[in-house]
């Protein structure tokens, strides 16, 4: 009778122990599963976050490059446009000087005005040379006019120099026909030469007058800070 009760007891105990073992295992499994899930989330989040930052940096940098490229593009376009305008300006200035050059010779058909001009050119040359003997070379067409004003020229020179005399010879060789007007003067056997033709005067003047020409043509440049 005793062993029967013991047997049932033992069975119960064993059943309890088995249940206990199973329960422990289940708990352990639950733990492991929970931990697995937690670590899964952490790891996935970490990896994504890490790469997200890199990707963002990468595209930020490329965007910067694109914007820079655009700025350069715009700047180039603007530059080209400005150069176009500047070139047109210079072309206009050149055109004006050329027009003056074309009309230079007009005065030579009016002896009333041309005579005094010739005289002044010669006197100016005399003042520069300050020599006792001077040769004047003019155009063949101007020969008689030059001869007619020579005396006045000498007189003007004498007065200004307080008594210095000068002997003016007219050269056998004439200025070529493509010269508009004016004279060349030389002395000491061609060693000192002064070119006082209408062309040379225009060239000199045009060069010196460029600022004024520009202002007269285009108006004062509001961007300019220094005028001297």
């Amino acid at each position, binding site marked *: 009778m005793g062993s029967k009760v013991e047997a049932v007891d*033992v069975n119960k105990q064993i059943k309890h122990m088995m249940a206990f073992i199973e329960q422990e295992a289940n708990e352990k499994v639950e733990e492991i599963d929970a931990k697995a899930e937690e670590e899964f989330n952490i790891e996935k989040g970490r990896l994504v976050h890490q790469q997200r930052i890199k990707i963002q940096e990468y595209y930020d940098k490329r965007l910067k490059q694109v914007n820079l490229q655009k700025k350069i593009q715009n700047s180039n376009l603007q530059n080209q446009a400005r150069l176009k305008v500047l070139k047109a*300006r210079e072309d*206009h200035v050149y055109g004006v000087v050329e027009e*003056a050059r074309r009309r230079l010779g007009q005065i030579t058909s009016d002896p009333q005005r041309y005579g005094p001009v010739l005289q*002044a050119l010669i006197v100016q040359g005399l*003042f520069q040379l300050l020599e006792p003997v001077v040769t004047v070379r003019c155009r063949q067409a101007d020969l008689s006019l030059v001869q007619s004003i020579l005396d006045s020229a000498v007189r003007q020179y004498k007065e200004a120099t307080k008594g210095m005399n000068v002997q003016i010879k007219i050269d056998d060789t004439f200025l070529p026909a493509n010269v508009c007007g004016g004279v060349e003067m030389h002395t000491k056997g061609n060693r000192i030469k002064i070119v006082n033709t209408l062309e040379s005067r225009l060239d000199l*003047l045009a060069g010196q007058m460029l600022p004024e020409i520009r202002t007269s043509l285009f108006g004062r440049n509001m961007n300019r800070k220094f005028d001297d």
Partner: protein
Amino acid sequence: MAQNNQGIQHLLQAEKKASEKVAEARKRKQRRLKQAKEEAQAEIERIHKEKDANFRAVESATLGDKDKMAAQIDLETRRKLHEMDILVGNNKEGVVQQLLSLVYNIKPEMHPNARPEKLGA
């Protein structure tokens, strides 16, 4: 004591089953962690594609209107040139006249430092 043997057998079996369960759970955990890498990779790819598409859209918008800008600048330049032509047209004659009158207007002057008395004619 046959029950004892049986009992112990049962217990041993239960232990074995239990440790198998736990081992199984551990394996699951490893697989889950591997999955994390794979899913992260997929997510990263998605983000990359998205950002790339965004970027390309902005890029072509920014650089694409080069022609528009060029046309705008060209229009402005033409306007400036036209204005200049008109200005010059108005002023050219005056300037030419001024230049010519300067050419013809000669005032011969002695050099300020020259002393003719000393030159000995």
